[in-house]
């Protein structure tokens, strides 16, 4: 078997970039077809293909790293840069929605009554469920750090417990937020207040779900002995992502829930 004279990872040919691209094609075209002809088939097919692609692509990365040993220090460095750049792009994504919020709220138009919150909007009390949500996410930041230290110290059971607690806190946040959405006295259709509120908090909620899923995968991997005390980058990436989700919430809470109320 030929051996490489370098520490980098030359990946096997893979079908997943193609299936992923086709999934994107199906989801976008499907979205247009759904909007015009009320048929969800194409979009749903795209979603299924996306899930299949993500499952198999990330499964293959776990095989390459954990089972084949391809994630040498230089390769891991590249993965770190990659995750940092991805999170940075997500920061810019949210920046746009914060820009929209401040654009409308710092100079409220006469149509809104020249004030923020606009006339007719009953805002949520920032010191009720939103404050609880803040405490929940901050606590989950502590538990995920506990999990990291447990992994680094080789404490298998504690790592599993603290990681499980982190995920449960994430689910609790999602459940509380879903309840808030249901009970809110305003909707996304209630002018620019409704739009900025639900688009910003809605995308945040989606990221909480994504982050919880990433952490859940890490929990399964920790249970299956994938992580060692000095090599567990998948977990670190999930923890970075989770801290990012927490920080976005803090900005949302301060700007939209508190200052905007």
């Amino acid at each position: 078997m030929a051996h490489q004279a370098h520490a980098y990872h030359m990946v096997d040919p893979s079908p997943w970039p193609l299936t992923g691209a086709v999934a994107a094609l199906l989801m976008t075209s499907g979205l247009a077809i759904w909007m015009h002809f009320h048929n969800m088939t194409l979009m749903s097919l795209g979603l299924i293909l996306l899930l299949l692609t993500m499952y198999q692509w990330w499964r293959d990365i776990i095989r390459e790293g954990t089972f084949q040993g391809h994630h040498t220090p230089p390769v891991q460095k590249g993965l770190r840069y990659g995750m940092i750049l991805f999170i940075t792009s997500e920061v810019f994504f949210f920046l746009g929605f914060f820009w929209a919020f401040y654009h409308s709220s710092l100079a409220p138009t006469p149509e809104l009554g020249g004030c923020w919150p606009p006339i007719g909007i009953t805002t949520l009390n920032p010191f009720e469920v939103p404050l609880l949500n803040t405490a929940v996410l901050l606590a989950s930041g502590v538990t995920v750090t506990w999990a990291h230290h447990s992994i680094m110290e080789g404490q298998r059971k504690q790592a599993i417990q603290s990681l499980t607690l982190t995920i449960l806190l994430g689910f609790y946040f999602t459940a509380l937020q879903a309840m808030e959405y249901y009970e809110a006295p305003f909707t996304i259709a209630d002018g620019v207040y409704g739009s900025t509120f639900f688009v910003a908090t809605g995308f945040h909620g989606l990221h909480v779900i994504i982050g919880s899923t990433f952490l859940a995968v890490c929990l399964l991997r920790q249970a299956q002995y994938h992580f060692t005390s000095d090599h567990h980058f998948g977990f670190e990436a999930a923890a970075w992502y989770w801290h990012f989700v927490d920080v976005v919430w803090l900005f949302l809470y301060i700007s939209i829930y508190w200052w905007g109320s």
Partner: protein
Amino acid sequence: GRRHTAVQQMARRSICSSARRQVENKVPQKQKMFQEDNGMPIHLKGGSSDALLYRATMVLTVLGVGFTLYELVKASFPQKKD
């Protein structure tokens, strides 16, 4: 009485057996399987279930492209109004 003790003993036995069920460390086996020099690419190296899932995904991919082109061409022509 005695029946109560028997139930307690049974409860204790079942709790013990579930606590003893540990997840086995299968990483060394997996490492051996995935480092075997059999020329299989990573996305098929896990066995026949890999091939099944791959084939299913590819079928959806090809059908999906066809379906998309069909829907887009159909949408490009004037729709018959009822």
